[in-house]
């Protein structure tokens, strides 16, 4: 927030009422997810099959990770446009690291560890870059991440030469994709674990508290001695590391480092975050809202695929239902 915005005159009570967030988590969206799901299940019995339930969970777990990454930044009144290309870059980078080590004599665990580390470091680097330019130079997050969007895209395509990178050890796939635990696929288990950690971090740490305060009123937080630069920096790093994790799970799912895997993830993750109930005006959103938004979008598109709504009609239905869902949510929030 620039000084100019900080000195905006005080909001009237009416404005406050609008801004104070009646958490939509308890409201209509969960009901929307359930209604959608039941509707699809009635239309086609295969929606309820255990294979499809696992399928939904698995698809949700990817989007959930990215949506959480986006939510963290949005809570601090930012926006991460570079999320998608970062995912591409991490996918290629970690795959390359493993492929290169794989040609030597290193054991599988070492290779996988190196790959994971490479991915996490690449992600963290993007986070440090975004975080320091946003936190210290105070450039609008949109522009900063538009810049790193381009940079990461360039690096991803240059590193890979445009070709998918292969040659990862089997252990990598087991760990992040094919393995199961309690009957749940690895990505789902990881997503649940990470979701719980992020929930804890946002609710119970100084970092999380500070992030919400910064998102709500950065100037007030600064005056009250909250270390805003440090927290913003950490938020971008955490966000990018989550993105990197999601990207590596996707890499394990595809079996190759893909320079175009990030594609539309930036926008999709933002959509999931906002549909779930985070707001670009900052200070609201949580792991729960990210989950809700991801689930809503995945159930919708999975259902449409299964009941065989054709390609471009799906786009129209998706657009209308997302807007309608959010609208109903706001109406309920207003009335109570």
């Amino acid at each position: 927030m620039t000084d100019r915005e900080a000195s905006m005159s005080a909001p009237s009570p009416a404005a406050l009422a609008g801004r104070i967030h009646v958490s939509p988590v308890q409201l209509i969206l969960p009901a929307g997810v359930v209604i959608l799901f039941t509707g699809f299940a009635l239309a086609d019995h295969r929606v309820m099959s255990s294979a499809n339930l696992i399928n939904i969970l698995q698809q949700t777990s990817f989007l959930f990770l990215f949506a959480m990454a986006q939510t963290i930044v949005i809570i601090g009144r930012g926006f991460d446009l570079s999320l998608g290309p970062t995912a591409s870059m991490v996918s290629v980078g970690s795959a390359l690291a493993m492929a290169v080590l794989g040609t030597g004599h290193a054991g599988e665990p070492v290779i996988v560890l190196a790959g994971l580390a490479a991915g996490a470091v690449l992600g963290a680097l993007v986070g440090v870059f975004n975080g320091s330019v946003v936190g210290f130079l105070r450039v609008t997050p949109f522009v900063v991440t538009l810049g790193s969007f381009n940079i990461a895209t360039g690096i991803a395509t240059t590193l890979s030469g445009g070709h998918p990178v292969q040659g990862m050890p089997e252990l990598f796939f087991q760990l992040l994709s094919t393995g199961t635990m309690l009957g749940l696929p690895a990505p789902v288990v990881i997503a649940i674990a990470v979701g719980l950690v992020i929930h804890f971090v946002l609710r119970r740490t100084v970092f999380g508290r500070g992030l919400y305060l910064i998102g709500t009123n950065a100037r007030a937080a600064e005056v009250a001695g909250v270390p805003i630069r440090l927290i913003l920096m950490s938020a971008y790093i955490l966000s990018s590391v989550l993105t990197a994790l999601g990207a590596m799970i996707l890499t394990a799912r595809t079996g190759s480092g893909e320079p175009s895997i990030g594609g539309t993830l930036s926008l999709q993750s933002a959509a999931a975050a906002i549909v779930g109930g985070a707001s670009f005006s900052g200070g609201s959103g949580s792991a729960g809202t990210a989950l809700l938004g991801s689930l809503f979008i995945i159930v919708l598109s999975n259902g449409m695929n299964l009941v065989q709504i054709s390609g471009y009609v799906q786009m129209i239905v998706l657009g209308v239902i997302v807007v309608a869902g959010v609208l109903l949510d706001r109406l309920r929030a207003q009335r109570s």
Partner: protein
Amino acid sequence: MTVEEADMRSSSRGDLRALSRWISAIGILPVLLTVLILGMCIIDPRFSGVANVTNILRNASVLAIVAFGQALVLIAGGFDLSVGAIVALASEIAAVTMRWAGTAFPEQDALIIALGVGAALGTGILVGLVNGICVAVLRISGFIATLGSMSVTLGIALIITNGIPVYGLPQSFITQFGRARWFEFPSAAYVAIAILLVLAFVQRRTVLGRYLYAIGGNSEAAIVSGISTRRYQIAAYVISGLLAAVTGLLLTALVGSGQASFGGDLMMLQSIAAAVIGGVSLHGGVGRFGMVALSAIFLSILSNALNLLRVDSRIQPIFIGVILICAVALDEIRRRRTVHD
């Protein structure tokens, strides 16, 4: 203190302050732009060739027109993700209408073109209206509303033609408008300049302009001051839709066919980038159209320059990213210096 005294005081501190204020009003962008242009002229004589300048101007104009609409919505405190989709749909609607009109009224090019242009502009206005109503009346956040309408609009555009280009435009539409040069300058530049002049006038001398700034700055204050904010918010989205449709028409006339590929994320991202680099605040209330035009030119020249300098096209994004951040960061630092003059 009398008025004269006030005048005297301000003029006595005058000269120095006027200079610093002039620089602060103008910003870093024109400086960078000048450096870029001069540098390119020295390094590569082809840069200033007629054909190259025409290309740059044309690309910049097309980008500037969508960015103007985007800027207007941003100034009013909104967000328009649907511009790319509108460009695509308008292009297809124009082409489909002209193809149909071409069979219904053969040889009457003026009528055919008028129908096509009307249909395309109508499409833009309609989508803008839907966006505006969602945001202003139903109070859905601009991001979600236009994300939804983007999906719907693009879906319709693809259903109409399955993304297959639509041909059969009257030749005169292409040769005398799309690819035409009037007094050495591409037609698109005239359209962009006309729109810029109109918007600058709207911003300075009409209530519409003033109210959009007020709404973006503090919508509660605008309401309390007796402004019917809904009407003006809707107007912003409608104008943005209209300008996106104009862009669609220009591209259609340039390429000679209606294409769904005009839309998509690229156009949307670029329009926001051009607006924001031109100093439009994503939080509303701040921005000048002249600067948006400059920033569109800047972005166009940048990618043209990288191509002329034969930079590997896979590395180009890295350059663009770094330059973008530097430009805006420098501007931010300058602004912080001058805020408390």
